[in-house]
């Protein structure tokens, strides 16, 4: 690509960023979504590298302090073995973040590859890939994820694997759909006529236009993954105590719901807020990519 064109692209990138931020500022929901998710992911990255900064020591049980209600010292109260629930939530939140990032990245990549290949080449390649996708889609995602996780046994990695197995087909469908649309576009035909090679075509023209709408979907999808992941934790499959993820904390807290309701409720609300933030972010990205905004 010529330097002129590159410079042109840089300029429009800066413009896009300005547009994005303006759009974000226009709506407090977007501000909340963007801000919270950035902070959450950043925090999770740091905490993932060094869990000690959360201040939570899972081995520090003090049974005399079990099931205390929320107070200044224990903002979320204590759990059944006397640990600070707030710190436990801080410790578990990065697990959800890490898991959903892994799952979304995996699904995105696999889906993009399989979907674009299916859409671009068509024919029996398309049919085979679509049938395989259908098989996975025919199964209610939760059932398959639970079955895989139960078969593999509880554990963080098994849960991630179980959900990833279930999650990629949607991205394949998306990618295929976008690929089909792009394939018929004018500029593709023009580039073909100009003699641009197939591989070049795919990489330079098809993929970027397929990826962009998928990103919008993926952003909002983080929240869905977190929900499914917390459901697995809720069913007892997933990260193991004392390194519980948020869903698992809710599951364990359920046993005490009648006389220590803060134990399952507050971590549950945390899940809710996280997912909500991602949903707002997803809306923001969708608005940003909506051609009607870019007038």
């Amino acid at each position: 690509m010529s330097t002129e064109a590159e410079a042109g692209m840089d300029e429009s990138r800066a413009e896009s960023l300005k547009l994005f931020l303006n759009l974000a500022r226009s709506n407090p929901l977007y501000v909340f979504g963007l801000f919270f998710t950035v902070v959450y992911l950043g925090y999770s990255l740091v905490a993932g590298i060094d869990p000690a900064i959360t201040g939570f020591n899972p081995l520090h049980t003090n049974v005399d302090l079990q099931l205390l209600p929320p107070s200044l010292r224990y903002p979320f109260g204590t759990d059944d073995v006397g640990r600070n629930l707030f710190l436990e939530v801080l410790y578990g939140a990065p697990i959800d973040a890490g898991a959903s990032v892994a799952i979304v990245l995996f699904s995105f990549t696999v889906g993009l590859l399989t979907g674009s290949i299916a859409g671009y080449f068509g024919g029996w390649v398309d049919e085979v890939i679509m049938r395989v996708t259908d098989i996975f889609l025919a199964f209610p995602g939760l059932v398959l994820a639970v079955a895989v996780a139960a078969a593999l046994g509880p554990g963080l990695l098994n849960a991630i694997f179980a959900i990833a197995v279930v999650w990629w087909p949607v991205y394949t469908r998306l990618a295929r759909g976008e690929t089909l649309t792009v394939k018929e576009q004018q500029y593709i035909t023009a580039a073909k006529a100009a003699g641009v090679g197939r591989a070049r075509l795919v990489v330079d023209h098809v993929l970027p236009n397929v990826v962009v709408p998928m990103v919008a979907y993926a952003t909002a999808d983080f929240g869905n993954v977190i929900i499914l992941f917390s459901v697995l934790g809720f069913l007892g499959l997933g990260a193991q105590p004392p390194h519980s993820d948020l869903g698992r904390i809710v599951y364990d807290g359920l046993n005490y719901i009648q006389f220590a309701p803060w134990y399952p409720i507050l971590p549950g609300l945390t899940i809710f807020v996280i997912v909500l933030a991602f949903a707002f972010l997803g809306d923001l990205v969708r608005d940003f990519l909506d051609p009607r905004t870019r007038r």
Partner: protein
Amino acid sequence: MLTNKRRKGVNRTLAVVLVVVVVIVIAASVYAVSRPSKTSTTPPTSTTSSSTTSTGSGSSTTTTSTSAGAPYNETLVVAETLGEPSGLDVAWSTDAPAYEIEQNIYQGLVWYQGNSTNSYVGVLATNWSVTPDGLTYTFSLRHDVRFSNGAPFNAYDVWFNYYRLTLNNGPPGYILGPATFTPGNITLQDLNTFNFTDPTPAQLAVMENPNQSIQVVNEYTIAFHLAHPIPSFMARLAAPPGGIEYPQFIQEHGGVQANGTENTYVDANGAPGTGPYVVSSWIHGQSITLTLNPYYWGPRPHVSKVVIEYVTNTLDAINDLKSGSAQMLYTVPFNLLPDINSTPGVILESHGLSYDIAWLSLNTQAYPLNITDVRLAINYAVNRTQIIDKVLYGYGVPFQGPIPIGMFGHNNSIMPIGYNLSKAKQLLAEAGFPGGKGIPPLTLLYYTGDPVVLATVQIIQSDLAQIGITVTLEGVTQATYFNIAATVPRVSNYPDILWSVWFPDFAYPDDYAYSFENINSVFDNSNVNNTLLNLWTTEALNSANLTQQAILYSKITELDKQLGDNVWLWQSVVGYGVPAYASNVHNVYWNPILYGYNYSAIYIYPYS
């Protein structure tokens, strides 16, 4: 898309909505927080014994005090939280919910006297004798017993039932059947074609042949010829698989099945029995209803209808008991005790301890747990009393196993290892691991779904961290847990520390000592292969002499304590929780080996 003017308006509305949502959430949390928290719980006092027998004995009459004012024709609702029976055929079920029902609808030859398991009374038997070599047991049977369909009971029925257990070889076979009798020349066809009410002379000849495990002496006398002494034989007869079912019913509904095959019809519907109740309906997933056996030979129960509801949500079960829609509850899980304790009108069962125990099995075949001092250090580092206090709310006691307190063979003078942190550290240092340095992380396997287990293993994890030992917790589903724990040879991922629980199969010490200490038992969870232990447990298993058994079991207990491969955690009121019932329910019979409730002596007064 948005003009500046509109943006401001939108922001305000939005902010208001968001604030409202947040306020609601905070208000709800404050409300939740302001609810009364748990009150202190009162643990049970030492074991008391109330002398009531309920199932009727051969020679004495039942004693029920102050039942004069209590009416008959009552309905009792029981909230059952342990789950539904897997079936109602004594030849196929081994789960506690099944036992509970079976103990009320079938009867065996004997049961225990009162509230201990040290002496027996006859139920279907009137008296019995044993030869000094312990090989022949002869029972005289009651004459006036009828099954719930009116058919008379006799020795031929016993012959049928116990050969059925032996030939069918279902899951309970390790209690009664192949574990105690040999099939000899008896075939399935015999069992499926003989007439057990009025046998032909040819059939009688087969049944009366003295050269077999089970022999009919006459219509009301049965004899058992054992191949070797079985000290636990009486206890096995008293266990639920010893219940007698009406033979013709089984013959007409699938018959006696071949080795290892289930009779699905009888398992799903039960068979006529001689007990005080019959199952009048079973709505799967919901309830079982027991009504009176019209032909019951014993005193008529006060409660004529028992509705046992399978309530999966224990909080609901507790609410049912509190509100009065259920009169009895089996059981309140330990972690929910604060919710029901000190509720007026509710009694928590505290007669004494069952034989249910929990402990940690340390894998003696794995490094560094093959070093005795390391194992003993772990024993001293676990604070059992704290766990019992805070997790079981006092409804358990520490004990020195393998034999539980109250069972024959338990030696009260051998004290359990107590909590001593400095001693633990010292032992670890002497073993060459000062401060825990050099000890690799140990895996602890447990099954999920029980918050009591989860809380306990987490406390143990932090207890051991105090002496420098790192424990990794592995929680698996119960099904996976069985696959790992009960498979021999041991799987490659057998854990260093295995969470272990045990509920008695029958009330005799070899069910514990042999199971845990003998290398040939699949339940030797610590994989201990000690020559003396192997020898003593086998001797005790086959000894006909009570004194010799007592001595052997004391020696086994002492050696177990020295080896330290089993970290005995607690013996509890009931393994799963605490039974509870309304204060107007009287004469609730209790025995350490009883599963669930025995309904025939209960009366409700005053009746609301």
